[in-house]
């Protein structure tokens, strides 16, 4: 059994806020693939607490394209749904590719993109793609709605900018942040399935007449939070696409990463990966688009 002190199920978004008011110490659970695993491991804050279940809140599910081309992804949309969603496949293939690599099929059917982000694991597979698409998080409380760019939403391992009573409802990606881009995500892990990345890299690039018009690179598991590579991105702007350019972009990435050693990999090994993964990701992104 899970060591929880109660379970309350929300039937609508308004109901989530009511329950949060009645149970201010409760933890929100969506698909359970992180929260229930942490509860099993008796992580502080995940045991001896009530849970509020939101998996039946319809307003927080699904992918919609607004009239101006902005793509809205409900926080409760599962990895499996995102992987197979037409709007995402056509416009944000980097994201569908990234979420297709999460855990195993069972995990992808239950795990949600909002849960993946709010759990704030440094290696979360959906995060680097959302960072490169400049996704904006829509955060609601009973009385307020505010927007926070995902690049500013993370505070540290397991910590995001949510105040008590607030819920991440959806992600918004504007047209100018996905149209005309090509992307690729590399998850570097020991096993192909059911593993956590040693390092992961999402690269998103816009190229016209063989010149880089825009470049965005984000690493997962290279720091406490997913991080973009401003030095490498700035270097790449306006450059011709060539092997030399890509290799130099890879080298620039060392300026912005703070890799660590742990039982999964040494620092030297990770630093090597930091320089080669973006090169590979960019090469594959550009090859895909041809």
């Amino acid at each position, binding site marked *: *059994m*899970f*060591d*929880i*002190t*109660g*379970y309350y*199920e929300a039937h609508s978004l308004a109901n989530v806020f009511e329950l949060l008011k009645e149970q201010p110490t409760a933890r929100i*659970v969506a698909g*359970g*693939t992180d929260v*229930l*695993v942490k509860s*099993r*491991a008796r992580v502080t804050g995940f045991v001896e607490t009530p*849970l509020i*279940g939101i*998996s039946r809140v319809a307003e927080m599910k699904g992918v919609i394209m607004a009239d101006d081309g902005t793509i809205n992804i409900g926080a409760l949309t599962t990895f499996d749904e995102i992987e197979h969603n037409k709007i995402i496949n056509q416009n944000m293939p980097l994201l569908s590719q990234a979420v297709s690599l999460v*855990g*195993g*099929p*069972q*995990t992808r*059917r*239950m795990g949600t993109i909002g849960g993946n982000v709010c759990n704030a694991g440094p290696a979360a597979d959906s995060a680097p793609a959302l960072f490169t698409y400049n996704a904006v998080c829509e955060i609601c409380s009973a009385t307020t709605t505010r927007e926070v760019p995902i690049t500013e939403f993370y505070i540290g391992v397991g910590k995001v900018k949510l105040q008590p009573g607030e819920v991440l409802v959806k992600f918004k990606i504007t047209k100018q942040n996905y149209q005309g881009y090509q992307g690729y995500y590399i998850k570097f892990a020991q096993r*192909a*399935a*059911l593993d956590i990345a040693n390092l992961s890299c999402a690269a998103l690039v816009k190229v016209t007449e063989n010149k880089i018009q825009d470049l965005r690179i984000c690493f997962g598991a290279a720091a406490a939070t997913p991080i973009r590579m401003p030095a490498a991105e700035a270097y790449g702007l306006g450059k011709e696409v060539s092997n030399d350019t890509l290799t130099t972009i890879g080298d620039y990435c060392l300026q912005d990463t703070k890799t660590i050693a742990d039982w999964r990999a040494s620092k030297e090994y990770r630093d090597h990966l930091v320089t080669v993964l973006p090169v590979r990701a960019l090469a594959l992104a550009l090859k895909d688009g041809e």
Partner: protein
Amino acid sequence: MIQEIEFTLNGEAVTCAVDVRKSLLEMLREDFSLIGMKEGCSVGECGACSVLIDEQAVDSCIYLAVWVDGKSITTIEGITHTDGSLDNVQQAFIDAGAVQCGFCIPGMIISSSQFIKENPQPSRDEIRRALSGNMCRCTGYQKIIDAVELAVETK
């Protein structure tokens, strides 16, 4: 804290007053004496506890029992036909020699059943990906993949 739930279990409408702290795995094994699905890791990594919820294979160890309210569950016991004869997926696992200790097999068959239904002509790579959430410590997987191919042929 107890919650009253109603759901369909292997084709039968059932109700249960369940402790909200229980996983679906615990409820099915303890309250319904269905012990075909196994608890391997209890954290969603091995797939031994897989069941179909509304025709989708999920890990029942990290699924709250109360979440099945209003849903339809099929366990390995429900894959076996009501007259006790084996489903062709089960038979294919036997015929292909895909079963060693057997601990992972109920989960493998649950995942395979959904997959075969949705993919009538799968490649070996597609089979591998479909079963990538199920771990086996005995067989080395080759014969399990053979079994799924055989099940596709004998459908």
